[in-house]
């Protein structure tokens, strides 16, 4: 593996549980993930795989009760975020790591004008007066394509797409090193989706922000991400450069995902689905969490949780079976 010091973000063996009335939800189990400076990582998985929980863990925003980071290290720019005190964590939130959430319709405070909401971010992390903060906020609005006169308007006066732009403006207001975007375009129309993605691409280039883009849409990943991590039931199962993963997916789950996308060129009669259902997070399968649904499953798969294997430089898979097959092939 590459030198640990090179990574902007290094998540080691992260485990997050939620204690609920119906049992303990194993949201994230032994997750490992790295992100380099200036990189954008696509974090892909179905709903319920644990992507948002991972993001919240990085932000140290896991609601407690009922959630808890049980184990693991989140090393950001040399510091282990799990060990910081509350004030240090607040310093990082918004200032160094910013997050965009999924639903723009509910992410903004309905009774405060949007300009002020952006200015709040600036006031928290930069040493400026209220007026200066507001001026900068207005500049941010222009940057995301909203007319500056609208700074005193309230969220309900904006459409979904425009609200998401405001959210982006808030997130980037203090030039964070890392931006985490949790399905930022899922709640938007397809045409608006394209606009917002374009905006994010431009801003990413301009600010040179590293980014983690959480999504379940492989198309979005192809558009905007350098690297991809595929997540299933609480841990990462495959990780590689986008181009590498898309041309040579190895993990059976990844293959299932790609296969389920209907091919316009082929004559298909049935949609290909991955057999079975997502496991119950309060009752995960033993060993490899995917083994009940896996076409390549071997007896060992139900006994031992597979480790990430670097099958080729920069391409990691958590499946010994397909690795053996790959090695045999070539």
């Amino acid at each position, binding site marked *: 593996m590459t030198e640990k010091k090179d990574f902007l973000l290094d998540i080691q063996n992260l485990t997050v549980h939620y204690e609920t009335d119906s049992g303990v939800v194993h949201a994230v189990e032994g997750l490992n993930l790295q992100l380099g400076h200036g990189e954008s990582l696509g974090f892909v998985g179905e709903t319920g795989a644990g992507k948002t929980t991972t993001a919240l863990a990085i932000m140290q*925003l896991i609601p407690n009760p009922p959630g808890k980071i049980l184990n693991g290290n989140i090393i950001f720019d040399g510091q282990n975020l799990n060990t910081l005190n509350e004030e240090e964590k*607040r*310093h990082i*939130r918004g200032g160094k790591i910013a997050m965009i*959430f999924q639903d723009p319709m509910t*992410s*903004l*405070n309905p*009774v405060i004008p949007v300009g002020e909401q952006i200015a709040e971010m600036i006031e*928290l992390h930069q040493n400026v007066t209220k007026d200066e903060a507001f001026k900068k906020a207005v500049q941010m609005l222009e940057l995301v394509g909203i007319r500056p006169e609208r700074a005193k308007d309230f969220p309900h006066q904006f459409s979904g797409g425009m609200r998401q732009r405001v959210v982006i403006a808030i997130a980037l207001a203090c030039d964070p090193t890392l931006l985490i975007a949790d399905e930022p375009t899922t709640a938007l129309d397809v045409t608006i989706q394209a606009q917002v993605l374009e905006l994010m691409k431009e801003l990413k280039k301009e600010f040179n922000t590293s980014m983690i883009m959480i999504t379940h849409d492989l198309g979005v990943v192809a558009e905007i991400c350098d690297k991809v991590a595929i997540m299933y039931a609480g841990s990462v199962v495959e990780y590689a450069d986008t181009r590498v993963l898309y041309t040579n997916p190895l993990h059976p789950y990844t293959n299932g995902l790609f296969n389920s996308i209907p091919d316009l060129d082929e004559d298909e009669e049935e949609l290909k689905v991955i057999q079975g259902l997502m496991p119950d997070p309060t009752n995960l399968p033993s060993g490899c969490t995917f083994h009940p649904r896996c076409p390549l499953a071997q007896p060992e798969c139900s006994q031992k949780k597979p480790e990430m294997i670097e099958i080729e430089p920069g391409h990691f898979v958590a499946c010994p079976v397909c690795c053996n097959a790959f090695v045999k092939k070539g």
Partner: protein
Amino acid sequence: MLKYIFKRIISLIPVLIGVAFIVFSLLYFTPGDPARMVLGDMATEEALQAFRETEGLNDPFIVQFGRYLYKATTQADIGRSYVTKRPVTNEIMTVFPATLKLAAFSMFLAVIFGIPFGIISAIKQYSWFDSITMIFAMIGISMPVFWLGVLLILFFSVRLNWLPSSGFGTFSAMILPSISLAAQGVAIVTRMTRSTMLEVIRQDYIRTVRAKGQKESLVIWRHALPNALIPVITIAGIQFGQLLGGAVLTESIFSIPGVGRLMVEAIKMRDFPVVQGGVLYIAVAFSLVNLLVDLIYAWIDPRIKAQYR
């Protein structure tokens, strides 16, 4: 905004007419002969007939109601007391201020104590503070206002002799009645504030603010509170109505010279114009308070304000 105010005031009119209709109908259909009530049992048949003619008591219902409405709106004349023969309006206006003072002070107490307790309970949900507050709130809602008043008198006036048990002139005289009236109000405001706070804290935009790195105290104070208090204002308005109703009972217990006590005495003496007149005036006061609450609500909540810009 002015358009909204105007609209609201206009819509108040049919409601007040409706209330007048109810009050008048109740008066009209109350068993008993008004002529006899005013002139007494000794009156002759001619005197009774003459009275009925001059007062227009033989006219059809609609005509009488129209006359009632006209007199009420133009001269504030809603009849005379059967007992004192003085205009009902005068009787009520003499004592109304005391009732308003009592209700307003109780409302004040309810808000001053209810809101902070509700907020803290919501923030520290599941804590012992929360549990105890909720139990007290439950007791507050369940305790009859007249029983509480009696108990307070028993302890603080009779046994301890700290506070007076009647009258309303001095500040110390106001304490016990206000507390007994406010108890229910405090309980309701506490519960309501707690529940709106709990809902607001779970909203996405609160998470957004935390993700900005904002201090928790400001998250609550600047973001959660303003959103949570908006529905509480509406409840406060409705509470005022309940307080006015409860004042009737409280005034009896503490011998406060207000509309409530006037009405209770009038009930005993079967002086119906005063009883119904009291109801009418209180309903008007209540409607005005609700109007005020609606306007405040529209002014505070930008979503509503924007509709009428």
